[in-house]
């Protein structure tokens, strides 16, 4: 064994016990090399001193105040996290409640606005006034600018009148019976002008008698 190999094996021969060949070689090297022998001897003395120095602090541990401070930090930290979680949950709950409130209010408003829909329908009719009415309605008529109450036909819903179009038609009074209205039989053959509110599906939803009707 050379000095370098001895150095690599380590000064502490006790750690070489498992490797008997290296241990024997190291011992042999110590016998023949005064430099390594002196180093090894000094190391033995130093090891005892190191052991003693180590023993001085063997039982050392952090003072109790460190634990107290850490526990305080822990509590503060987790209280803050909890508070933050509660705040986030409360925030989302409030936001959800606000959305529900707005939705309910909007639906209520829509329901209230429903009966006056013809006004909107008239506006729609104005835009499409150049468009001829379907042939099944007979005469093509311009949309009415008249204000007045429409009467919902039986089976019609107010909500379906959003995009309805107003068409004025001339018909026999008796034809109103086909729309589900009561007709005076004596005047059933009279010609009358009627504003029909026609839905998207082309079916009349409501009607009113035109102001110049007989």
């Amino acid at each position, binding site marked *: 064994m050379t000095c370098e190999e001895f150095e*690599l094996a380590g000064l502490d021969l006790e750690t070489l016990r498992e490797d008997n060949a290296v241990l024997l070689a190291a011992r042999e090297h110590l016998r023949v090399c005064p430099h390594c022998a002196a180093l090894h001897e000094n190391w033995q003395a*130093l090891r005892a001193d*190191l052991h003693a120095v180590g*023993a001085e602090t063997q039982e*050392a541990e952090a003072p109790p105040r460190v*634990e107290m401070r*850490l526990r305080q930090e822990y509590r503060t930290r987790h209280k803050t996290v909890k508070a933050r979680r509660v705040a986030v949950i409360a925030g989302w709950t409030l936001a959800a409640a606000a959305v529900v409130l707005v939705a309910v209010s909007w639906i209520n408003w829509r329901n209230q606005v429903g009966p006056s829909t013809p006004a909107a329908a008239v506006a729609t009719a104005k835009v499409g006034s150049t468009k001829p009415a379907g042939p099944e309605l007979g005469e093509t008529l311009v949309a009415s600018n008249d204000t007045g109450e429409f009467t919902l036909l039986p089976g019609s819903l107010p909500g379906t009148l959003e995009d309805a179009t107003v068409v004025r038609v001339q018909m026999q009074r008796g034809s109103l019976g086909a729309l589900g209205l009561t007709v005076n039989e004596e005047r059933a053959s009279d010609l009358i002008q009627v504003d029909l509110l026609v839905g998207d599906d082309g079916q009349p939803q409501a009607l009113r008698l035109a102001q110049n009707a007989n």
Partner: protein
Amino acid sequence: MHIEAQERDDVLLRRSAKGDEEAFTELYRRHQAPLYRFALRMSGNVWAAEEIVQDVFVTLIRDPKKFDPGRGALRSYLYGITRNRVMKHLERVPREWLHEEIDEDNASQAGPGFDVMTPAEWAELHERREQVRAAVLELPVEFREAVVLCGLEELSYEEAAQLLECPVGTIRSRLHRGRALLLAKLEMLRDTPKRAGANR
């Protein structure tokens, strides 16, 4: 919540992260002493060691998810943080002296036969230990770590390698060089008074 003595560290850490203070306290009590000793022996300063240990556990409180059980034991992870804090401390304050709060009486009793020593022998022993402490603190950090863990804390090479996350061979060679440096420093320290006396 009841805590079993053998409850695994990662389980305790998970509980601690969920707000179980008792689990955190158990973790702290399990690991603080070796970490404190390591910091104390590396820095030579009780205040620094205290601050470092506190820092390490504050990190654990603030960011427990940084620990990945798949990469190793919590002990190694905590040693890693402690080492980083020690390095930072040593960069700030490169070298400090002595363990200020070590009880001198207890310290001197750490060797055999202290009760039959003459005052001169006691003084010599005391001085020699002071020199050893000083020499350890003067070692370059990587050698100091190896000497502190294997020489003072008396861990096996394998344990030290695990904690320092390096191969056993590295520990062995660092330890060897550390010891050689330590011997050289001690020789120098012991020669200094003689040389000073010879110059007079």
